[in-house]
């Protein structure tokens, strides 16, 4: 038998230790988070339907975020103590939550409008060379523009263009495609020992520089490819090898002295054409891998295969792949239920049904038709 007194004492004890949880409402969904959490992290806790898009924020990288404004949200009530709304839209990746905060993300048309504008700004100088770009299919900007972009552009000036640059023997920099999210700079700062590339110039003229094209010879430099949200930093060993959605991702690991060795192998037929770090559901790498794993181990015999990578059903990478768990029979029904809209249908339906004929019509062949109904 459980000692009730002991149980209650434990509960009190636990409440003492636990920090005060803050209650936040995002798009009408309540969630409790620890102090210091940002709105974006709180929204991610709820799920991908509520989480604002992020082009520059990258959870594993310290100080990232606040650059792209893709995650702007409206704060309808600042906190329980001071329920005034915040005057302007705020970047959810930088704003910490407060108790009783009410956040409007996709439910507010002002936020959607702002995001549409952000896409337009990000695409001002971004070339529309997705058919050529190796990032297409796993590109954050592509996803963002798919959700919020317009079909046409209002920009008529000359776009800024740069020559392609080689950063070391394995990485290619297409500065034309860069959206200046600074993720690669933070990666170089935090993952590698000494930074050899940063951002040169200011405003429209700023570009990712390597200080006179000095090659990054760091063991972990290849991770800038994975963190890049667009196709600005690409793998030279994978250049034009295949489209992302034709290759088959497989989780694998190996004993690596420098890194965790947990990677995703991308197969075309029997050949490994690319090795990347594993990405979580927010498209973020949590375990960075070394250049040896990424660029030099491209044989199946180097790896211990764990099994196919989980790819969301909506991703283009799952196209033309017929694993049992990618094709869900209930998917169509759930989609139909989610998209169902009651339509205004007030027609005169009295003529549509089968009409009852008068009983006199049958009197000759069926005399009982005239009998009163029981």
């Amino acid at each position, binding site marked *: 038998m459980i000692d009730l007194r002991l149980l209650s004492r434990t509960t009190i004890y636990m409440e003492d230790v636990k920090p005060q949880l803050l209650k936040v409402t995002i798009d009408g969904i309540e969630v409790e988070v620890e102090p210091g959490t940002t709105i974006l992290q709180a929204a991610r806790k709820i799920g991908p339907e509520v989480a604002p898009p992020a082009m520059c924020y990258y959870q594993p990288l310290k100080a990232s975020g606040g650059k792209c404004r893709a995650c702007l949200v409206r704060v309808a009530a600042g906190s329980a103590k001071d329920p005034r709304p915040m005057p302007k839209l705020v970047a959810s990746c930088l704003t910490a939550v407060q108790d009783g905060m009410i956040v409007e993300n996709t439910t507010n048309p002002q936020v959607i409008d702002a995001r549409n504008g952000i896409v337009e700004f990000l695409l001002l100088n971004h070339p*529309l*060379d*997705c*058919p050529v770009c190796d990032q297409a299919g796993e590109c954050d900007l592509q996803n963002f523009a798919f959700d919020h972009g317009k*079909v*046409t552009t209002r920009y008529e000036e000359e*776009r800024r263009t740069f020559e392609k640059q080689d950063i070391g023997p394995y990485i290619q920099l297409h500065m034309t495609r860069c959206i200046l999210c600074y993720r690669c700079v933070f990666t170089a700062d935090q993952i590698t020992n000494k930074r050899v590339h940063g951002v040169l110039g200011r405003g429209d003229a700023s570009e990712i520089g390597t200080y006179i094209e000095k090659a990054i010879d760091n063991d972990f430099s290849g991770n800038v490819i994975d963190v890049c949200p667009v196709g600005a930093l690409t793998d030279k060993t994978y*250049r*034009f090898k295949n*489209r992302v959605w034709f290759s088959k991702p497989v989780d694998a690991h190996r004993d690596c002295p420098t890194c965790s060795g947990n990677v995703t192998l991308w197969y075309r037929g029997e050949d490994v054409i690319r090795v990347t770090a594993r990405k979580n559901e927010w498209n973020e790498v949590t375990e960075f891998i070394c250049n040896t794993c990424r660029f030099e181990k491209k044989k199946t015999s180097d790896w211990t295969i764990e099994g196919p990578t989980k790819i969301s059903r909506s991703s283009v990478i799952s196209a033309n792949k017929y694993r049992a768990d990618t094709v869900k029979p209930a998917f169509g029904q759930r989609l139909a239920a989610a998209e169902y809209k009651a339509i205004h249908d007030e027609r005169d339906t009295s003529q549509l049904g089968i009409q009852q004929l008068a009983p006199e019509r049958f009197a000759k062949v069926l005399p009982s038709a005239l009998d009163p109904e029981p």
Partner: protein
Amino acid sequence: MQLTTRSKQVSNKEMTLAEKMYLPAVISGLAITISHFFRKKPTIQYPEVKRYLGPIYRGHHILKRDEQGRERCTACGLCAVACPAEAISMVAAERKKGEENLYREEKYAAVYEINMLRCIFCGLCEEACPKQAVYLRHDLMVPVFLERDEVIYGKDRLVENMDDRYIRVANPEVNATPTEPSLTRAAT
């Protein structure tokens, strides 16, 4: 209640002599038959004579070139991912220095194959193509094949011949110099 105006009253009256001979009826029947000999024949002698299939018929695939004769296809793979029959496959390659007059973009399809046994001629590849490279000709059908190795069409049979360019009459956008949508103007 009258259901139709063509109904006739049936009678059992005695036939006349002319009717008993059946000759007028036979002759009038034969006259109908003979008159058909002199009518215009609706049959088309198919392999020799081919019928116009309309301006939107989806026939033989073609990989267009642009006005300077460069291949438009950039091997983006959208046709292959749109294809419900998975008939299209391709291998991309990077354009080298000096090949600018051959290929339009820095990437091109080194191999582009369509399996005509698989193709269902739905035209989704044409719709998916962002570079206006692949079209289904309205004026040419894929010929009958006798051997299985004839079925996979490579670039040698798909790329447009500059001396005999494909022009779609019904759609002025598919003329000899297809117009680019304004969006791709600044694409590198």
